[in-house]
């Protein structure tokens, strides 16, 4: 145990810590900060966000049919407010607009005066009342068409994955379908966790890389082999690397979720991912919070698997050039494919339900085999 602790201390030396901090700052600046600073991103997203929050406060996370009817009544109230707005301003009457219905129908065929006024009210004046109505109409429309899924007429849905159509039919009639979870809240979280995953993969790869190289370079391996621990050292190093990764991922994710809390999405946590306002359907019933937990668990598992792979790379590389080369290939695969195929896409109905368990199983078997073979070889390895 003491050796494991020494190895961890060696891994977190000040130079590596400095590099890890710099990597985090740069990646945050380039790829992550955008999704914090621009959530919700402009109009109409911010209006949709406000509406979503108001609906959850009023009806809870599920908007059943009676709540929906109430919502439509409040929409009628808002239309009246808009009518009043229009009637108290003479420029509308001048342009031939007397109520909200006429305002809404302004299009390319209308008079130029009406078109200009329409643009001015929405874009220059930013009159909230019209933006709000637009959002409400969008939500009402999606609720009324909640039996149609994003994949409803898609060839994906019709393709030969058994149970997909049945699952879609089951989802659209379920109570979860009525829950309130705007698609951009989910997409924002997905973008954030995917880029954070890339940061975590890179950090873990940089942190774990030198674990074996460092001792080989200092010719410490020879001394270590003749000690009491002897060649079991590699397994201790592996354990140390896994613990270091766990610590690093925990720190980075803690910071991430502290920042994410400022996006204020917690009111949607209890909503089902299969909501009428979300663009994705899942194979199983998860709330948004459960989905977040799922992605976090997947991220931990992936980070630990990447660690085992990098320990293997570090222990077989004859020089740093080889190590860096292998790490670059690994980092590329992790950053380009792993972050969604093996994390945010889990449970997505566009994929066959057995794909993810199978993929994880194969990867775990593959990496476990590499690690065991390496441990066995280590026992009989000639000293260089």
């Amino acid at each position, binding site marked *: 145990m003491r050796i494991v602790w020494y190895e961890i201390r060696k891994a977190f030396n000040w130079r590596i810590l400095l590099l890890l901090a710099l990597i985090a700052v740069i990646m945050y600046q380039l790829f992550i900060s955008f999704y914090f600073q621009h959530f919700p991103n402009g109009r109409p997203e911010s209006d949709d966000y406000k509406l979503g929050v108001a609906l959850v406060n009023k009806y809870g996370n599920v908007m059943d049919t009676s709540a929906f009817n109430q919502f439509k009544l409040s929409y009628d109230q808002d239309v009246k407010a808009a009518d009043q707005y229009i009637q108290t301003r003479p420029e509308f009457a001048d342009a031939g607009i007397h109520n909200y219905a006429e305002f809404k129908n302004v299009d390319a065929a209308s008079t130029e005066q009406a078109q200009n006024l329409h643009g001015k009210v929405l874009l220059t004046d930013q009159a909230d009342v019209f933006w709000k109505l637009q959002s409400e109409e969008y939500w009402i429309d999606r609720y009324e068409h909640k039996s149609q899924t994003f994949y409803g007429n898609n060839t994906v849905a019709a393709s030969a994955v058994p149970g997909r159509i049945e699952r879609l039919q089951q989802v659209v009639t379920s109570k979860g379908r009525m829950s309130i979870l705007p698609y951009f809240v989910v997409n924002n979280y997905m973008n954030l966790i995917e880029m954070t995953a890339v940061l975590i993969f890179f950090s873990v790869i940089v942190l774990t890389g030198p674990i074996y190289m460092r001792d080989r370079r200092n010719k410490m391996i020879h001394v270590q082999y003749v000690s009491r621990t002897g060649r079991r050292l590699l397994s201790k190093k592996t354990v140390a690397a896994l613990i270091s990764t766990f610590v690093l991922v925990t720190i980075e994710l803690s910071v991430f979720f502290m920042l994410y809390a400022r996006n204020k999405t917690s009111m949607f946590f209890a909503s089902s991912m299969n909501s009428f306002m979300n663009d994705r359907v899942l194979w199983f019933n998860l709330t948004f919070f459960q989905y977040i937990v799922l992605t976090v668990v997947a991220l931990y598992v992936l980070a630990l698997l990447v660690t085992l792979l990098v320990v293997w790379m570090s222990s077989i590389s004859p*020089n740093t050039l080889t190590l860096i*080369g292998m790490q670059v290939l690994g980092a590329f695969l992790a950053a380009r494919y792993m972050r969604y195929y093996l994390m945010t896409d889990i449970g997505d109905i566009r994929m066959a339900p057995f794909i993810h368990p199978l993929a994880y199983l194969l990867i775990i078997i593959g990496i476990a085999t590499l690690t065991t073979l390496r441990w066995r070889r280590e026992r009989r390895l000639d000293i260089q």
Partner: protein
Amino acid sequence: MNLVLLELRKALATPIVVVMIGACLAFNLLLMFAGGHPRSELQVVNQMAESLGFKIDAQFLTANQVAANASGDEERAVRTYYANRMKGIDNLYHHLDLNQVATAQINMHQLTGAAAQTVRGEYAALGVRFKQIVADGEYRTLFFDGKLYRMHSLLFRTLFGAMIFEIIILVVMMTGFLVNYEFEHDTSHVAYTSRRGRRMIRDKLVAALLATTIVSIVIMGTTLPVYFHAYNYTGLWHVPISSAFNAEYSLPYISWWDLSIAQFLAACVVLTYGCALLFAGVAFLVSTWIRNSYLVFVASAIVLGVGVALPGLMPNSSNLVFLSEFTPFTLILNPHLWFMESGAFTTFKFYEIWTFAVWFVLLSLLSVLRIKRFRTQNL
């Protein structure tokens, strides 16, 4: 010279370098064919240009009509499609006002003061060139329809973007490895006390630059021939890059010079190689400060990241924001916009040339200083 070759062998004979080059080429193939570009349709465009020339004039249109009537279904469809598209292109070019583009760019990036003034200046200068494109009819030329196939993006954005990063990764890896080789293999005490001694650092730099050249030749020299074998450009080599058909978005590509596709390609190849040299220089400098090639690689990646993030940290009102774009780190990000209109920050006529020249001189000077310093340094 012998020493240089031996150093070169150290880097290139490592199996991982060969494996990585192989992986890069495989990835390039994937990028090339994943888009599902219809090769037979593209071939028709090529034939049109070969038989009728690529300049679109009345003669071209009549001859195209005749050819369309006398051919098979697909060819007729393609020829008719292009004939229809040609009717609309004058309109855009006669009404496009680059001052409005400048205003839109200024609003988009929220630029004020001197910075906004600079952007207006850039687009005013580009406007002169644009008038020439319209007057000479440079835009009235046939090319694969950019709005349909995005061939310019496929080649110069996707493929060149990937090749630049691949070359740079390999170059930085190898440079860091070579420069620190003696320290990492415990041969420094022998090597640096030999007759050649500490002058060897210069051989290492030369070897790294040679390795850069070889890697650039191998990556570009295999990827590009495969690309042009898959997508035939025979009749289109002399089409200007500013052709209306090359345009992919609402604003067409407007090059600063009357470059043909072939010339533009050659310029991109040369500049890619230039960027590779600059990055070898950066990696060399980092290696002379950090004696661990693992950390050299990570530190170089961080330098790249800082360089890319830098413009975002500059005040929107001052000309510093443009200065921060004159680095190889931002230069490599948009190879498809080299030598042409490229947004508010980099639309300067000699942006690419100045960036390369200034950094080349700067890195060379610093390298010479570091080599001199190395002679008297405490090892």
